[in-house]
């Protein structure tokens, strides 16, 4: 059975907060960084990462693995990621159930998959390849999306759960994305949660979105909305004190404001301020 570390409550480490993080004592149990921003040779990004890592656990969250593309896994990217993993020793390594490259061209977006048996087999094989190279389990995040495919045969939640089972990986459950997709596609958010295998949910994302009238856009530029907090409450009731964090990528407020928002997650989850990461890590074996 998969077991993932319980890290408590974290935030995404973002440039405007670097100084406050390094010089202060923010009430944050761990940080998540976008892996690609630190796959660089040196300079301030790597310096900040080293200093943050001295004080907190740092999880790596990628956006370029392109696990659902028919392109092969990018060995150069994977090698760089493996080197960063070796250096940072992150408790969690994650990316998205999506595709973002084709024919060697990068989209720099998280494009949705058609949920078919062919896609399922492809994702399973690529996750296994990545996990073999990294020597550990990864977590895949449910994406936000703005279309559904005529070819899809399997509900997204079932698809994600089956990928996790077949490939023996974890699930990063983005509660905001469940809400966004439920609104955009008329899905049942509660049924989505119910379809998740609890033992494979290793992390939860919270974020804000923007309402464009015809659809919700996963913009990470607003506080977490009430409906998503409610859904988060349902998620922790089902999955327990899963490692949770808030993502904010646009209209970034002060660190204090985000820490205050994170306190609400703590209250909802009812967990202690810091959970000992004493459980076995997510590595194979």
């Amino acid at each position, binding site marked *: 059975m998969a077991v993932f570390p319980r890290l408590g409550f974290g935030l995404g480490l973002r440039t405007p907060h670097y100084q406050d993080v390094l010089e202060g004592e923010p009430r944050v149990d761990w940080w998540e960084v976008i892996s*690609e921003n630190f*796959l*660089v*040779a*040196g*300079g*301030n*990004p*790597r*310096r900040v990462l080293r200093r943050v890592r001295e004080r907190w656990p740092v999880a790596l969250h990628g956006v*370029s693995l392109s696990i659902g*593309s*028919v392109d092969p896994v*990018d060995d*150069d*990217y994977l090698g760089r990621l493996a080197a960063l993993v070796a250096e940072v020793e992150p408790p969690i390594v994650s990316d998205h159930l999506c*595709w973002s*490259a*084709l*024919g*060697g*061209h*990068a*989209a*720099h*977006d998280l*494009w949705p998959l*058609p949920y*078919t048996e*062919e*896609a399922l087999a*492809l994702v399973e094989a690529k996750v296994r390849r990545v996990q073999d190279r990294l020597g550990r389990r990864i977590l895949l995040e449910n994406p936000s*999306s*703005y*279309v*559904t*495919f*005529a*070819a*899809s045969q399997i509900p997204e939640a079932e698809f994600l759960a089956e990928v996790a089972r077949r490939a023996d990986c974890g699930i990063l459950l983005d509660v905001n994305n469940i809400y966004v997709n439920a609104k*955009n*596609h008329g899905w049942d958010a509660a049924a989505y949660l119910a379809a998740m295998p609890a033992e494979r949910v290793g992390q939860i994302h919270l974020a804000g979105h923007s309402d464009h009238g*015809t*659809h919700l*856009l996963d913009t990470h530029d607003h506080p977490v909305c009430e409906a998503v907090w409610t859904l988060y409450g349902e998620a922790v009731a089902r999955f327990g004190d899963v490692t949770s964090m808030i993502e904010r990528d646009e209209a970034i407020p002060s660190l204090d404001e985000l820490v205050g928002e994170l306190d609400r997650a703590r209250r909802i989850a009812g967990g202690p301020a810091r959970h000992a990461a004493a459980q076995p890590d997510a590595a194979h074996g």
Partner: protein
Amino acid sequence: MADLATLQRQFYDRVTAGEPTDGLIASGDLEIYAVMYASRLRDALAEDYPKLRAALGDARFAALADDYLRAHPPRSFTLRDAGQRLADHLRAGAAVPAWPPWAADLAALERARVEVFDGPDAEPLAHAGVVALGDQLPELVLAWIPSSVVVALAWAVDDLWSAIEDGQPSAAPACEARVVRVWRRDVSVLHRTLDADEAELARDLAIGTRFAGACERLGRLHGDGASARAAELLLRWLEEEVLAAPADHTVG
């Protein structure tokens, strides 16, 4: 039913190039992805080329970005590299009147600043390390730190860069060849126009040269004044923290 490869090709062509699709989606709007694809890449270019954007204006820069991205769709996993070939693209299209002839040089200067921002870390050569050499100074190997790029310009775009940075009115740059060194000191990215003799030495320091060799080159340029000039340049470079500290300052 289309296989996954065909489906992804249809999606990609629709989102990146507006190609029509037939029966691909059951619900939703692919245009949302098309808008996000274009805007994210434009934003990345604008972030990496702020002075070029300011000099061209938002509309012309957006047109340039679209033109560039059609010719060079990103191939790297990182957005940092999305604009990597913008200067080359502008040079290749120099005959096209849409872009001013100095735009390629300004792009090259701004790209160099991106490269050194998160380039390799290195310990700079310190004054004390040089003083300790004593009469071994001629054997000192001079080399730029790794996060240092020398850019040859045909236009004085460094002046344009500074004017925009300082919020001053920016006239079109003069057609004047210059050599600019871009480097990182601690976490700050800096650049400076090199003197003519520095520019000649810059090529030697790119691969590493002994101090004695640098003095010889300066001797051909300055005659009897070479020693004083060599000392002046060495002190300037030490102050700028742009010389790499070798493990052993002498060549065995």
